[in-house]
């Protein structure tokens, strides 16, 4: 049984006088204990909303509706009352955010922010909490942790701030970590360090990790299973190797083709996916990607495409997928 099993998760934002937005529209995926699962897609595909919904962090107000189920070790996270959900957050599931500077309180020293979690969930206090906090900082690779504890977020470099946030997230040894674009706000060398750190933490502690990113390079290096999201639905899901060797969905192919390549000739242009995320067909009227798709056929419009399973567990949501045997076609 998987650690987290998300079934038909949907999130809609309704506002009077405006069309209801289906930010997440029936996303299903599962995460096994110790597994690294990637959620990939461009801006607006519903990655972050998915993670916020799982954490119960979407604003509680009229107009925000969450549906489906998210079974975490026997309890449905989406049905949990706010009080119990608060106990789960930080203790069983923790999250790492995109922008480490704005995710840390600017007027509170790092040490207090790290100990806060320990006090809240592990009932530690005073010296014990401070000592543990220093050990946590040390574990995530921050040198001279006792001094750093007294410092404010703006005194740390970007990479170190992200390390501090990671330390806070892993403070209670959660069983599931959700990393929402954890490297986007960092420069490339620091990105590599942070990914290395996350990998190490996952390997050492057996924590499961949901890696949310738009960067296929990141998932290629880390994830065991990859879910590609488009317009609020999973369009392709596969083990890492299968996905990179035998991608089937035109959107996945387009994503991979648009990555800059080291072996590309000088002056060779990148291959973008045409159109923009706004050119979306509602899923109820066919494939949402159809308006941007080169392999579009008559069958794409009319009714929503279903997930096509294969015997390897590789699934894709497309009526006219790339054939399996010719991955070179992807480079067109």
């Amino acid at each position: 049984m998987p650690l987290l099993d998300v079934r038909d998760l949907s999130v809609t934002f309704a506002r009077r006088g405006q069309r209801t937005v289906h930010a997440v529209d029936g996303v299903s995926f599962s995460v096994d204990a110790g597994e690294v699962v990637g959620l990939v897609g461009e801006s607006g595909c519903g990655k972050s909303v998915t993670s916020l919904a799982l954490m119960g962090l979407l604003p509680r107000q009229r107009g925000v509706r969450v549906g489906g189920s998210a079974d975490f070790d026997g309890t449905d996270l989406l049905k949990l009352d706010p009080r119990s959900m608060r106990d789960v957050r930080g203790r069983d599931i923790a999250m790492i955010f995109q922008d480490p500077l704005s995710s840390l309180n600017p007027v509170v020293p790092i040490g207090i922010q790290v100990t806060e979690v320990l006090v809240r969930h592990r009932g530690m206090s005073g010296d014990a909490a401070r000592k543990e906090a220093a050990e946590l900082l040390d574990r995530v690779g921050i040198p001279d942790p006792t001094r750093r504890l007294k410092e404010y977020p703006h005194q740390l470099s970007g990479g170190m701030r992200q390390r501090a946030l990671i330390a806070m997230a892993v403070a209670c040894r959660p069983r599931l970590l959700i990393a929402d674009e954890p490297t986007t706000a960092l420069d490339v060398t620091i990105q590599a360090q942070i990914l290395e750190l996350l990998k190490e933490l996952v390997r050492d502690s057996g924590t499961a990790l949901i890696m949310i990113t738009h960067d296929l390079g990141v998932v290629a290096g880390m994830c065991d299973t990859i879910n590609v999201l488009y317009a609020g639905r999973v369009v392709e899901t596969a083990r890492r190797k299968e996905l990179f060797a035998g991608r089937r969905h035109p959107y996945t192919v387009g994503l991979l083709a648009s990555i800059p390549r080291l072996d590309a000739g000088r002056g060779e242009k990148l291959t973008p996916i045409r159109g923009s995320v706004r050119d979306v067909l509602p899923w109820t009227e066919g494939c949402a990607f159809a308006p941007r798709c080169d392999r579009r056929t008559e069958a794409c419009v009319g009714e929503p495409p279903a997930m096509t399973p294969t015997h390897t567990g590789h699934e894709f949501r497309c009526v006219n997928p790339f054939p399996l045997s010719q991955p070179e076609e992807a480079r067109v």
Partner: protein
Amino acid sequence: MTLAPGRKKEKLDRLAELSAVHDDERGVSLWQEALRRLRRNPAAIVGAVILTVFVLVAVIGPFLVPHEPTDTMGIREGVVKSGQGLIPGPSADHWLGYDHQGRDEFSRMVVGARQTLLVGIVATLIGLTIGVLIGGVAGAAAGLGGRWGRLVDSVLMRIVDMMLSLPSLLLAVSVAALLGPGLTTVMIAVGVVSVPIFARLLRGSMIAQANRDYVVAASSLGVRESKIAISHILPNSLAPVIVQATLTLATAIIEVAALSFLGLGNPDSAVPEWGLMLADAQPYLGIRPELAIYPAVGIIITALGFTLLGEAMREALDPKLRR
């Protein structure tokens, strides 16, 4: 590239150290940074100097005054010596001359400074405390409390709106009329008038903070809403309130003087207070206009000092102007 795990760790450590070096300039907190910027602003310096002098005069001045501010006996000698009529002007012995009851004007100005400062500060503190309580509760409720929170917020803010819709001097006069004249009345009246400003300001700035990433990050770690409001949102929302408190001190001093002038303050003129001195000087404007000018100038300069410092603090603490 394959490295042994140990060497890899070493390499990472070294990288982390390298990235730590360039931001190692000794860090400063928000307030230290603001102080540094204040020191570079000439308006702030002027304001600070004025206030330092004012506070020194108010605190130690009354122990050093050349004459008792209540002594009316010295006047006989003064009238004879100066030959300037019944309210003699400045002399070597009485630097600002006598007031209409024959008391030393300079001593009264100095002792009056203490009264003015005390009443101004207490009034501002009253306004600040009530305002921060109302604004803090409303801001936290609106920012984090869901549907019930928004209700609490609406109720509190409508009360504040009602206070805000009354002209401040009228409100002060009504409070004073309700409680009877006296210094306490004046302090409460002026304090109550400044409540809405503090409440609105703090609530607005807390709501703005409630959507910030670090608040979401804190709640993603399971931190309780009450704790988030007090230890994360509140400290980030206080800067504008502190600036407002400095500016309110200026208006409080003016309003205190105004209420005393209107006769709502301490009616006993034995305790000198600038507003009261101003009122007392009124009948003698034709003979000795200086008697009105001294307290007026005192009020203006102190208010100016607080305003200059307050404005400079606002600039120093404004993150948008930060370089």
